C-alpha cells in the first residue's frame, strides 16, 4: 500500500501539476470545517509515531505546547537525514515535496504555528532545490502565504539548508543550527515545546511524519490507525541497503514480516549468500543475528522484542563473509567524528571506542579490551546531553555481545581472519 509513494516514478511527481492530479491539496479546502484542536485530535487518533527514529507519538508531542502563549509557535520539519543507512526522506523531498508541504500546512494549523521551517541536510542540494521550487509553486498557487480558504490561518514556509553535521539531526542541535550557531545540542528541559527555536514554543517532526498527515486528515485518524499493528499504525518507509539484491526505499504497512520483506520485496541477500547480520533501524540500533530476525515483523514492538529498534527504518543487510569487527570500526569512527564535543563522556569515550575497536581489528587487541569496551559504553550512555552518546554505544555493545567469537578470533590470531578488506563490489543480480 502506497500512501507516501503514491505516484509513478516518471520524473515529474515533484510538480504541483502531478500532485493535483493525485487529488493533492484537496483536503485543504476542507480545512475550514476543522478547528485546530480537531486536526490535532485526528492526528492523535491516527496513532502515528514519529518517523525520525525515536517513535514518539506525534499527536501527544503536539499537545505539550502551552495552551496560552504570547510568543509565536514554530514548526520545524527535520530533513537532516544523517543516520547512516537512512535515505528515505530524500525520496519524499525530491519526488513528493507537495505532500510534505500540505502536511506542514495541516500540522502548522493544528498547532497554530506562525512559521514553518524545513531543514534539509547540506549535501542534499538537489532536494533543497526541488523543495524550494515546490514551496514557490505553493506560494504562487496561494496555498502558502495567504489565508487558507475559509479560514484566517496563513502558513509560511522557509527552506533552510544544513552544512554537514550528524548531531544537528537532534532536535535541539537543529534549532541551534537554524539560529546560525554551532549545531551543539541543548539540555532538556526546557523541552522544545516550551522553549525551542528563538526561545519560542516549537514542534519538530521528521519529514515522513509530516508527509503522512494529509492522508490522515483525508481518511480520518481512525482509518489510518486500522493500518499496521496496534502500537505501530500506518505505513513506514524502509530504506534498505548493504548486501541486498534490490536495495532502495519501500513503503510497507507496519507489521509486515521481515524475512518476507527481505526475500520478496528486496530479492534476498546479494549474490545468494547467507544472511549474517541485520542492522534494522539505522546505524544506532543494535545489530541482530539471523535467528533474531526469523519471526520479526516490521513494527516498533516486534523489533524491540527482537532486541533492537525500528529507528528510522534504515535496514542494513550484512552477508556471510563480512568481518563484523571491521564493520563496527566504520561505526565507531563515525560516532567519534560526529560527537559535537561538549560532553566529556561522549567526546572522549567515542574516541576510545574507536581506538580500541581499531586495535582489535588490527590484531593488536587483548581480551581485556572486550571488557574495556563495555565499561566505556557504561560511562557514556545516559551521561550526555543528547542521545548521540547512547547511539554510539548501541552498536558497540551489540556487536561485541552477538559476534563475540569474531572479536576473540582477531585477538587470538593477532590478525583479521577475513580477507583484510571488504569483499569486492559485486555486480548486482
Amino acid at each position, binding site marked *: 500500500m502506497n500512501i507516501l509513494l503514491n505516484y509513478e516514478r516518471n520524473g515529474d511527481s515533484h510538480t504541483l501539476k502531478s500532485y493535483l492530479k493525485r487529488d493533492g491539496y484537496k483536503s485543504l479546502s476542507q480545512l475550514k470545517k476543522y478547528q485546530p484542536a480537531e486536526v490535532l485530535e485526528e492526528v492523535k487518533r491516527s496513532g502515528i509515531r514519529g518517523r525520525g527514529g525515536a517513535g514518539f507519538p506525534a499527536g501527544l508531542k503536539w499537545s505539550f505546547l502551552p495552551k496560552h502563549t504570547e510568543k509565536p509557535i514554530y514548526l520545524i520539519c527535520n530533513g537532516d537525514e544523517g543516520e547512516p543507512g537512512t535515505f528515505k526522506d530524500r525520496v519524499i523531498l525530491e519526488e513528493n515535496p507537495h505532500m510534505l508541504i500540505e502536511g506542514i500546512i495541516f500540522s502548522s494549523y493544528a498547532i497554530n504555528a506562525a512559521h514553518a521551517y524545513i531543514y534539509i541536510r547540506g549535501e542534499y542540494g538537489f532536494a533543497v532545490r526541488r523543495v524550494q521550487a515546490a514551496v514557490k509553486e505553493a506560494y504562487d498557487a496561494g496555498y502558502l502565504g495567504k489565508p487558507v480558504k475559509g479560514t484566517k490561518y496563513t502558513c509560511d514556509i522557509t527552506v533552510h539548508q544544513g552544512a554537514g553535521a550528524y548531531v544537528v539531526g537532534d532536535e535541539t542541535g537543529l534549532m541551534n543550527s537554524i539560529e546560525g550557531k554551532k549545531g551543539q545540542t541543548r539540555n532538556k528541559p526546557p523541552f522544545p515545546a516550551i522553549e525551542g527555536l528563538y526561545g519560542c514554543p516549537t514542534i519538530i517532526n521528521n519529514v515522513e511524519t509530516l508527509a503522512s498527515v494529509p492522508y490522515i486528515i483525508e481518511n480520518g485518524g481512525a482509518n489510518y490507525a486500522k493500518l499496521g499493528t496496534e502500537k505501530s499504525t500506518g505505513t513506514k518507509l524502509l530504506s534498505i541497503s548493504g548486501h541486498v539484491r534490490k536495495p532502495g526505499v519501500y513503503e510497507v504497512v507496519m507489521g509486515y514480516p521481515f524475512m518476507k520483506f527481505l526475500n520478496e520485496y528486496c530479492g534476498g541477500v546479494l549474490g545468494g549468500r547467507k544472511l549474517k547480520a541485520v542492522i534494522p533501524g539505522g546505524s544506532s540500533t543494535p545489530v541482530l543475528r539471523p535467528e533474531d530476525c526469523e519471526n520479526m515483523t516490521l513494527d516498533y514492538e516486534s523489533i524491540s522484542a527482537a532486541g533492537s529498534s525500528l529507528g528510522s527504518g534504515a535496514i542494513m543487510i550484512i552477508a556471510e563473509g563480512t568481518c563484523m569487527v571491521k564493520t563496527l570500526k566504520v561505526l565507531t569512527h563515525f560516532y567519534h567524528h560526529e560527537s559535537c564535543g561538549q560532553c566529556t563522556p561522549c567526546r572522549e569515550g567515542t574516541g576510545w571506542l574507536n581506538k580500541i575497536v581499531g586495535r582489535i581489528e588490527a590484531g593488536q587487541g587483548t581480551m581485556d579490551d572486550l571488557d574495556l569496551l563495555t565499561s566505556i559504553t557504561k560511562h557514556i550512555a545516559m551521561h550526555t546531553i543528547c542521545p548521540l552518546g547512547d547511539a554510539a554505544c548501541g552498536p558497540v555493545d551489540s556487536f561485541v555481545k552477538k559476534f563475540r567469537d569474531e572479536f576473540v578470533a582477531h585477538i587470538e590470531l593477532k590478525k583479521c581472519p577475513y580477507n583484510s578488506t*571488504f569483499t569486492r563490489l559485486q555486480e548486482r543480480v
Partner: protein
Amino acid sequence: MSTTPTPFAANATDYKIPDKVMSKINEIASQYPEKNSAMLPALHLIQDEFGWIPPSAVRQLADALDTTPNKVYAVVSFYTMFNQAPVGKYHIQVCRNVSCSLLGSKHIVDHLTSKLGIQPGQTTENKKFTLSLVECLGACGTAPVMMINDTYYENLTSGKVDEILNTLA
C-alpha cells in the same frame, strides 16, 4: 615551541565578498526573526563564490550579521561542508560509511588515490582535484557513492569512476 597559525593570520584583503552576494545575504537575514539565522545560507553563498571560506570573508560576514568573527569561525569549523582551506576545482568526497564500505568503497578510494596520485585529504599539484572521505551521504541504496562538488555519483565501479573523471575538464 611552534605556534599554530590562526585562521585569521592570512592576508585579510585578498577576498572581498562581492556587493551582489552581500546584498543577497542581507536580504536573507531580513527574512528571519534573528539576523544570525542567515549564517549557514551566507556561508554557502560565500563558499559558492570562493570555493572555501576565507578568513577575510569571515570578518565581513561577522560585521553583516552583527556578530564576532570568533562566532562565525566556530560555525565554519563545526560543519564539515565548509572548507577552511582552498580545495581543488573538483572536490571528490567518497562515502566511507557502512553500506558503501560493504559494497567496496575502499576499492573506489584506492582507485582514486592511485589514479590521482594523492591521499585522502590532499589536493593534486595542478589544484584540479581534492580527495576526501566523508560519512554517510544518505544514498546508501545506490552504494558506493561519491560527491563531486555538489553532484552525487552512485553505483560506482572503477570503470565508472574513470568515465566520470574523463568528463571533468
